[in-house]
């Protein structure tokens, strides 16, 4: 089996078989991270470039660890310390990096579609590590892996995604992926954070969080981007926490064996209360562990065989 594509740009254009192949492969990689010697020689001589135009701890570290555990060489470029601040254009930066002959470029960019543009300009494989409010495919894959691990299936489960749907690439990638895999997806959040026509993606829409999470098998809370507060999408953080935050009382509305997910970074006390974030239903740290395995699987599946 091989992933018959050069790039991973979004979940939208992945087929169900491809998602299954990635998740199956990722499951096999879990074991490598539990060894005493956490390294296999698989990608010796492969160079992975992490090009990050936006801040990130989890995703960048996760990609770097994934590459290193496969014996690939990694280079991290964050724009704050690069020539971008001298005014070099995105394409020029990309062309220069291409000339140094990496094998895989991992890109995070604030502009939706940046990885797609990059993939047309360079011959290397491009992995989208989040582009604007568009897609974040590796996050959705690790979320689906976590759901499959905890629930042994995805099809037929009710997944509620709550928060700023309009600005969330995590929500969009998860909606594409989970609906493809046969889950019933519900989105919840204030109408100012709900994109128009979101129901056309095949999801149920609720504006009250209680309705959104009722009988859910999985609740996925999204980060409230506090930097958007002055865009007046909600009156105050406190009001948001009261009306849309996930607390213990609300969790009781979901299924008894509900699992609670969050892509991080969390705003404790805003979208999620600390007792829920650290509680028995929370699988937030399992998501992070699985993230490394998913990224190892992608690097492995994309490399070689030219």
């Amino acid at each position, binding site marked *: 089996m091989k992933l018959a594509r050069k790039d991973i740009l979004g979940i939208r254009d992945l087929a169900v078989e491809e998602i299954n192949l990635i998740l199956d492969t990722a499951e096999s990689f879990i074991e490598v991270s539990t060894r005493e*010697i956490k390294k296999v020689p698989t990608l010796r001589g492969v160079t992975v470039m992490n090009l990050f135009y936006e801040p990130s701890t989890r995703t960048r570290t996760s990609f770097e660890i994934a590459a290193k555990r496969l014996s690939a060489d990694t280079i991290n470029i964050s724009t704050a310390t690069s020539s971008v601040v001298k005014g070099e254009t995105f394409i020029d930066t990309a062309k220069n990096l291409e000339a140094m002959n990496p094998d895989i470029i991992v890109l995070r960019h604030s502009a939706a579609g940046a990885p797609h543009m990059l993939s047309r300009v360079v011959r290397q494989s491009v992995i989208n590590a989040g582009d604007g409010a568009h897609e974040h495919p590796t996050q959705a894959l690790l979320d689906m892996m976590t759901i499959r691990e905890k629930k042994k299936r995805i099809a037929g489960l009710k997944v509620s995604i709550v928060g700023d749907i309009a600005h969330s690439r995590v929500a969009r990638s998860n909606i594409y992926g989970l609906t493809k895999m046969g889950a019933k997806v519900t989105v919840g959040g204030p109408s100012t954070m709900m994109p128009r026509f979101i129901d056309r993606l095949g999801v149920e829409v609720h504006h009250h969080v209680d309705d959104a999470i009722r009988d859910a098998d999985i609740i996925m809370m999204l980060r409230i981007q506090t930097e958007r507060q002055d865009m007046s999408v909600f009156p105050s953080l406190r009001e948001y926490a009261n009306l849309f935050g996930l607390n213990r009382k609300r969790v009781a509305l979901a299924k008894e064996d509900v699992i609670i997910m969050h892509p991080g970074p969390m705003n404790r006390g805003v979208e999620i209360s600390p007792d829920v974030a650290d509680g028995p239903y929370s699988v937030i740290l399992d998501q992070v562990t699985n993230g490394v395995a998913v990224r190892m699987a992608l690097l492995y599946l994309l490399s*070689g*065989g030219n």
Partner: protein
Amino acid sequence: MSKKRVVMDSAGIDRSLTRISYEILEKNKGVEDLVIIGIQKGGVFLAERIREKICRIEDTKVPMGKLDITLYRDDLLTSSKKPRMGKTDIPFSLDNKKVVLVDDVLFTGRTIRAAMDALIDFGRPKLIQLAVLIDRGHRELPIRADFVGKNLPSSLWEEVNVSVSTDKAKDEVVILENA
């Protein structure tokens, strides 16, 4: 179409595995520090059979692990096909253990090279021995087996298939001639 020829049936395989089990015990003077590692996938079923036999003969328990060698292959970056990965599960340390590596068919020796590299990542075994059901020749690396079920001289255009599963009655070794 390919022609199929059965070269070993269920009873034959079982007798070979019995002999190999005795040979392992003889060569290692018992089961002290002995562990058995099956190579995914075919080797795992055979390793389980050998473990059962050894446990019965010596009336004791011998640890067993599974090893997937995909990540250690030498053709991953050159071949256009990606093999589907299996699970590695070695829930014990290999330090100072006598490891018996089990596989179904010994051919070029490349799988065994990969398996040995993988094992070394799990610790420093005292020694590694190799048990295979079929040795079909055509080695590309200086590797030989310590315990062999059957030497089966074959042509390169033939395919040697070992089917061993949980259903013992259906066990067989066949040669497929790709004409």
